[in-house]
């Protein structure tokens, strides 16, 4: 047998390969840790009660970021209202009712497309449809509607997965006892899959809470030193505020910027933790 010029013994090959993959994964993961630690260390000193609960002052260079925090809270709430009920209903349709035909196939293709549309294009759509066509103006309402359409595919796909995870036998038994299809879904399948649905919901809303591009022209205010009073008000929001103070305002104290990043990350990753908590608790309790 002719020996190849660069022959390496298989065992050695394996060792080298494993080390290489470990190193590449390390390169992938380390910057994430570094980023989290960096923001935590730099941001913590900026956090104070006043920073969290006061209005911005001096062209946003001093004071607090309360209107941005409240604004992001309202936007997330609005997104939840407009995306969760239709999202869950759509998932129930896909998991329980949809026949295996071309229409269903079309629904799935459009859903995948919806999930892939660039966030700034959602912003354009929201501007054209909600702000201008429906005359909502730049408002919490228009921004929430825009974000909810973006969130919908995430909620549908995670909910559908949760529904599919409930063993088929549960439904079969329920129907055989005389329950209708809807009774079976409402009393058996939905309660059993609730933790999975909750997890998906929170992860979807997490995405919405951190988005900037869709709200740029639909609801975000550059500077608004008061709290919004109606859904038709524009609002400050944490991600957009961070963008503004890190690129648009000269002589911005670095402390305020780090503080804002930390609050935004805490908001978003807090939701992530909550989702994981719900998922793990449900997994530990599951009996099937």
């Amino acid at each position, binding site marked *: 047998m002719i020996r190849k010029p660069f022959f390496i013994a298989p065992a050695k090959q394996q060792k080298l390969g494993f080390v290489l993959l470990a190193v590449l994964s390390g390169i992938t993961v380390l910057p994430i840790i570094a980023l989290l630690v960096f*923001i935590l260390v730099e941001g913590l000193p900026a956090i104070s009660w006043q920073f969290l609960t006061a209005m911005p002052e001096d062209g946003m260079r001093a004071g607090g970021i309360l209107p941005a925090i409240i604004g992001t809270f309202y936007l997330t709430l609005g997104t939840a209202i407009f995306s969760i009920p239709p999202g869950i209903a*759509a998932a129930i349709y896909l998991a329980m*009712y949809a026949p295996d035909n071309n229409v269903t196939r079309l*629904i799935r293709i459009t859903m995948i497309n919806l999930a*892939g549309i*660039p966030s700034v294009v959602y912003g*354009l759509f929201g501007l054209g*449809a909600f702000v201008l066509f429906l005359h909502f103006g730049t408002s919490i309402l228009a921004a929430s509607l825009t974000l909810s359409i973006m969130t919908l595919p995430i909620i549908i796909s995670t909910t559908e997965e949760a529904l599919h995870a409930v063993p088929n036998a549960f439904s079969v038994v329920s129907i055989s006892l005389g329950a209708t299809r809807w009774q079976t879904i409402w009393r058996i399948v939905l309660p059993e899959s609730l933790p999975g649905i909750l997890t998906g919901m929170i*992860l979807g809303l997490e995405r919405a809470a951190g988005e*900037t591009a869709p709200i740029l022209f639909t609801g975000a205010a550059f500077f608004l030193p008061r709290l919004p009073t109606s859904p038709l008000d524009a609002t400050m929001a944490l991600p957009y505020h961070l963008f503004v103070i890190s690129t648009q305002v000269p002589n911005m104290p670095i402390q305020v910027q780090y503080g804002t990043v930390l609050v935004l990350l805490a908001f978003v990753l807090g939701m992530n933790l909550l989702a994981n908590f719900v998922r793990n608790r449900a997994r530990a309790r599951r009996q099937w």
Partner: protein
Amino acid sequence: MINRNNFNKLSEYLITRIIRLAGYLSILYVALICLFLIREGFPALFNVPFSSLFGITWYPIEGHFGILPLFLGSLTVTFGAILISVPLGIATAVFISEIAPPWVNQVFKPLIEILAGIPSVVLGFIGILVLSPFLRRFLDLPTGLTAFTGALLLGWVAIPSIVSVAEDALNTVPRSYREASLALGANRWQTIWGVTVPAARNGILTAVMLGIGRVIGETMAVMMVTGNAPTMPNLLSLFQPVRTMTATIASEMGEVATNSTHYQVLFFIGIVLFILSLVINVIAFLISSRRMKRSERLLS
């Protein structure tokens, strides 16, 4: 009794109707998005001559609406990001699903999930504050705000989707494949590259397509770190300021008058982005449904 039965029947009927309607929502939304993009953006084709619209100068104040530099800007950044995220993402997916001990996965998987949740504006902020000054000094460039900086950041934007989809694909490879390979005397490394990865080929390809989609559509981070220079990029160099299509829409839409030519062209760029994401996602869908058919055939 009869009344109650009728009521149940009626509510069952209504609820079924509502649920069916909700099922069609995604079709409705995609149709509406198409409709509004076309409504606002299509007039650009009539108001701007073709040679200008597809020309090489983007200077809206003087009526130059060439989207080519922006298109190439997006392409350059995307290409760079994919060059970084595909090897890292696939290596991480293989490592997580085939090699790493459980305790490593308990650290790596949540970190990747956290990365998926980090808002892009936060990455952009770190890009401006840390990454770009570092690159400027380290590579001795006139400015740290370049296509490369954007590509580096966007690499990490694409990694979560690549890792999770590729890992799913690797996990669905039947155990018997690996066992057969090991039984024939191949070691784990040979099994991974000779059997597992090729068997998950379609899923990994889907992961790459979805990663590309994520990167092309990314807006905030790329706007903050690529230097905002809407000029024709030199295709051979990543180390120069560029501007992507997404960044152009985001940074200029706030300042244009509704229904002006500039406004229409920005919507037209939106149409281009929409079509790009459509093509990428349909390809990804076709690849992944091909995988399903193939495994069905194998298992039957």
